[in-house]
């Protein structure tokens, strides 16, 4: 008997037992699809989180302090950063803001936006980039110019398709001239767009717009990851000499959050990967059960085949082909389902094209096909070694 006949015989056996064949495949289909979908989507979610975190910029140190308990500390801190640790930084800006501000242009107005008071370094310390016009300049700060840079959302809503550069707007009633627009920082339409619903004016305008305010927040852009840690340590030390308690100030860096989130992401992936692995095992057990349940029936079939002259290797070849065909079809159907669900779900949830992880896909395929072939072959190998009379005795 040649391979082609063994192949045809296997197909016949599969078609002759449609329910059993389908159930065997189902285990593989579910196993493969579940692994692909879970792992790919977890990874997409992690990537998304990291991308979001990165949108804050790297190597940024945020300082919070209480200017009422120590009124001179703001100026002292600014001097310290500008003079003592200038070598470690690329920029520094006051980062105070007023929530609930109102911006208007002619009849158009926008409420509830965030008004920042920044320096010329505001954009590099907060990871904004100029889309049009110019950024705040050193001269704007020094001369106390009534200049404003708009967040992307504000420019969109108030000016639509008009060019806002050079136009005059009112911020909480005071007239300012638009000098530039920032690029949108958040491109995901499903995400909170507060980061683009803002405007920034020179911090020297604080008194004009917010009479009582003192500067309580700073953002510093450090040169690199190493300097970031150094800046954090130095500022903590500096501020500890200015206050007699630890609650009046705080020094943080987004790098530490990022590494924490990265850690959390990794454990997420491991957890969901394990769940997917379990579903693969459950699928495998399903395959095993179906195969073992039919051992008796198959043993008898093998007995009949041996009685009428089938050789052992012929029988094993037939069952091997049968199990392989079933597992391969199941594996590829699972693969297709896994891909479709991943892409569809990714589009719905993250609004982006999520493609399955190739490594995981390969592992899932190999494991499930291995299980299918292994357990499909098991009764054949066992039963074909029996004397025909013993195999035939299986009722």
């Amino acid at each position: 008997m040649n391979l082609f006949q063994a192949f045809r015989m296997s197909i016949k056996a599969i078609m002759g037992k449609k329910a059993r064949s389908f159930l065997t495949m189902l285990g593989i289909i579910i196993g493969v699809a579940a692994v692909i979908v879970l792992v790919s989507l977890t990874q997409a979610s992690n990537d998304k989180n990291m991308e979001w975190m990165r949108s804050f910029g790297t190597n940024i140190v945020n300082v919070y302090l209480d200017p009422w308990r120590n009124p001179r500390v703001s100026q002292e801190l600014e001097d310290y950063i500008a003079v003592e640790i200038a070598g470690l930084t690329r920029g520094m800006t006051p980062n105070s803001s007023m929530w609930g501000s109102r911006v208007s242009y002619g009849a158009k107005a926008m409420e509830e936006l965030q008004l920042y008071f920044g320096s010329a370094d505001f954009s590099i310390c907060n990871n904004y980039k100029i889309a049009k016009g110019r950024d705040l300049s050193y001269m704007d700060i020094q001369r106390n110019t009534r200049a404003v840079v708009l967040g992307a959302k504000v420019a969109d809503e108030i000016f639509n398709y008009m060019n806002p550069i050079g136009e005059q707007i009112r911020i909480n009633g005071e007239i300012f001239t638009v000098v530039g627009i920032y690029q949108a920082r958040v491109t995901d339409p499903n995400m909170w767009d507060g980061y683009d619903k803002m405007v920034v004016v020179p911090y020297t305008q604080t008194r004009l717009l917010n009479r009582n305010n003192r500067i309580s927040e700073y953002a510093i852009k450090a040169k690199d990851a190493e300097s970031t840690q150094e800046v954090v340590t130095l500022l903590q030390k500096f501020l500890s000499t200015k206050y007699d308690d630890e609650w009046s100030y705080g020094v943080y860096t987004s790098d530490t959050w990022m590494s924490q989130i990265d850690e959390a992401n990794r454990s997420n992936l491991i957890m969901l990967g394990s769940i997917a692995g379990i579903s693969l095992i459950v699928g495998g057990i399903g395959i095993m059960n179906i195969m073992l349940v039919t051992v008796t029936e198959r043993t008898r079939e093998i007995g009949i085949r041996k009685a009428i002259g089938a050789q052992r290797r012929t029988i094993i070849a037939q069952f091997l082909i049968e199990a392989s065909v079933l597992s391969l079809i199941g594996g590829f159907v699972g693969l297709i389902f896994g891909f479709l669900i991943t892409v569809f779900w990714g589009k719905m949830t993250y609004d982006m094209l999520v493609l399955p992880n190739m490594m995981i896909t390969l592992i899932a395929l190999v494991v499930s096909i291995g299980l299918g072939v292994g357990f499909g072959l098991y009764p054949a190998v066992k039963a074909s070694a029996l004397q025909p009379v013993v195999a035939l005795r299986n009722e």
Partner: protein
Amino acid sequence: MSKLIQIHKVYKIYGEGQESEVRALNGVTLDIDSGEYVAIVGPSGSGKSTLMNMLGLLDIPTYGRYYLKGELVSELSDTKLARVRNHEIGFIFQGFNLLGSLTALENVELPLIYQGIRASKRYDMAEDALRRVGLDNRMHHRPSEMSGGQQQRVAIARAIATNPSIIMADEPTGNLDSKTGAHVIEILKSLHAGGSTIILITHDEKIAQFAKRRIHVHDGKITEEL
């Protein structure tokens, strides 16, 4: 007539040396010539089925020698045994032993496939065998769509399709009513008339009457020959 089968002091012992030792065959010596119609008769548990399994190479003896067409088959490898069963022996079982997922034609084709015969020739041979048992009009039915008598005729067609030296029938009428059973016996008779060697295993003396030679088995031994 030439000697087709010679078995010499054949034993089949289960659990040898233990307290529960069973001697299913206890030193059987037997010759069967080509073209004979032999009935092996005995009550259940007498060892007649073990004898038939031994003769049909479905089982191997614990001791003793078995020559088929002069070849010592009791010492052959598993693979060679399969080839001998395939070419020399056709089985008819009490429970038919057809494969449920295959049609009548495909069941009959199966031993021909194992012989490696080309598809077109195989089809002709299988069709011819089915015609000889009067089932050429039901070739594409599955066993589940057939009566017991029809299934047994498919099994007979499968047994004769390869033109084997020996046809072994183990209680072929056991699962059939007397009318269809008589039909099966008729077919065996005509096969014998056509020159086939037939070994019929039965507990039923009436069916054994059709055979030219009757061998009685009791407690694993041949007790009388007629």
